[in-house]
């Protein structure tokens, strides 16, 4: 079973000639990572737009794209679209993670179920979402216009969260559990008093990765035909059919920002909920 990568994605190392220009960025606190990543891409992109594919205009210049961010009409449409997508993604995120956590807890309490749970998790991970997406879109059909978006978002976070949660639940020190048992506590008491807490750091690492994953799942479903008319996925289809390069780039940027925000926000919640993993917060003996 593959462990999920847990470290936040840092901006890619700059190439030698650009190195000097970007070294300063490394000193930036990690929580800006998502935003900084976008900034780096913009810089590279500007250079590319001025040098590559000038004939076809496949790479629009940053001003033509960034300008859209200051266009009021464009904004309200985007907010509307993003609202639809984020709504589906959030719902999927909630369900996917809930099912994953419940499954992990059940596996912990009933070990023989582990093999089955592993199979479910791996299968959900191995089926390419692009392949199963259209099937789910047809099944969800007209009754639940955004149903497929929710399902794909849920499927996208299910695997990482199951694995992260199980690893976390198992990470509890054996002596802590022995202690609870020696005092007459049951498996359930040990779970409540020890394992649920010691699982949090690992669980949150997974939840952090699951946030962009859920968003990607929702947008993909919309691109494959799910959801109402005002979603980011639909906007991408529209822009694509008109070969509107600046609009496509603009939508990609918006998606990236939302995705990054989700990652950063879950990270902040993690810091609030699991302060003990970040060391001392109150000076010892201070009263």
């Amino acid at each position, binding site marked *: 079973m593959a462990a999920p990568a847990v470290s936040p994605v840092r901006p890619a190392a700059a190439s030698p000639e650009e190195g000097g220009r970007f070294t300063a960025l490394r000193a930036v606190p990690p929580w800006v990572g998502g935003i900084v990543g976008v900034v780096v891409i913009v810089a590279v992109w500007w250079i590319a737009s001025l040098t590559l594919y000038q004939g076809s205009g496949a790479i629009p210049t940053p001003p033509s794209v960034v300008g859209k961010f200051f266009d009021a009409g464009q904004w309200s449409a985007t907010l509307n679209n993003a609202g639809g997508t984020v709504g589906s993604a959030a719902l999927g995120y909630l369900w996917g993670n809930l099912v994953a956590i419940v499954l992990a807890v059940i596996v912990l309490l009933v070990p023989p179920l582990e093999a089955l749970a592993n199979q479910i998790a791996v299968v959900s991970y191995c089926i390419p979402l692009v392949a199963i997406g259209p099937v789910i879109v047809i099944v969800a059909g007209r009754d639940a216009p955004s149903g497929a978006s929710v399902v794909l978002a849920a499927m996208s976070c299910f695997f990482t969260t199951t694995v992260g949660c199980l690893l976390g639940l198992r990470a509890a020190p054996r002596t802590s559990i*022995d202690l609870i048992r*020696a005092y007459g506590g049951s498996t359930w008491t040990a779970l409540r008093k020890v394992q649920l807490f010691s699982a949090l750091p690992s669980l949150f690492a997974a939840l952090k990765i699951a946030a962009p994953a859920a968003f990607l799942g929702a947008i993909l479903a919309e691109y494959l035909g799910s959801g109402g008319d005002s979603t980011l996925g639909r906007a991408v289809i529209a822009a694509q059919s008109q070969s509107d390069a600046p609009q496509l780039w603009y939508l990609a940027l918006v998606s990236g920002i939302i995705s990054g925000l989700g990652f950063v926000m879950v990270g902040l919640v993690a810091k609030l909920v699991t302060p003990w993993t970040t*060391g001392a917060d109150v*000076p010892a003996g201070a009263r």
Partner: protein
Amino acid sequence: MTGTHLDRHAGSRSSTTDPRAEARAATGINIQGLEKVFSMGRRSVQALASTNLGTTQNSFLSLLGPSGCGKSTILRILAGLETPTAGTALINGRSTWEIQRDHQLGIAFQEAALLPWRTVASNIRLPLEVAGITPEPGLIDDLVSLVGLSGFEKAKPGQLSGGMRQRVAIARCLAVQPTVMLLDEPFGALDDMTRQRLNVELLRIWTERPATTLMVTHGIAEAVFLSDVVAVMSPRPGRIAEVVEIDLPRPRLPELQRTPEFHEYVDRLSEILFGRGGAPADAH
């Protein structure tokens, strides 16, 4: 309080009395014919061969022996963490199950095993929470000051030194006001100086709050200093090789460790452990 009862030959027990009544009469720790075989797949390890051991109520028993001889296994059986393959283990005439049910067992391990998200006070309260007991007001504060950590009630384990954490573990062990204490190398991970100090404190606490105590240790001197009885175990499969009653007066003060009587006991135990002329590696 220092009288002991020992029976190293299972067959030699009186056959005229009812064994059950006899077991209840022999208070303290009473282990008879205890055996433990761990099986891992097709392989199996005999951790304990038929083991017998007995002490009186509220006496302090230390288990010494080479690594892997089954000391922790005995302690874990007494704590209800392992089930014996054969034999019985009673403490104060009662089974582990009864003692756990009445919340009379305190335990501490080599690792403090504090929960990092709980404060010192909240860690000490844990056994009471598990037992569903609301602590009397002031109990936790008393325990904190008993182990010399006043002012650190609200600190998190991550902010404490190793010695302080182990003090918290001892306070937690005392939270249920146990009549039975099981300590598995409680200060084994600490440096000699801290360990020495904590031993003196443990002795003071144990004198204030008597409890039938079993301590597993590698320190010969600390075993002599603290115990009424020291049982030395032989290598695998674990058996009790010899039991030495430590007939030194109480209360025991640190100065006792510089007396010839004390050293006589240390030498005798080293001899049993390492053989004549063998240099004790971890005696101090």
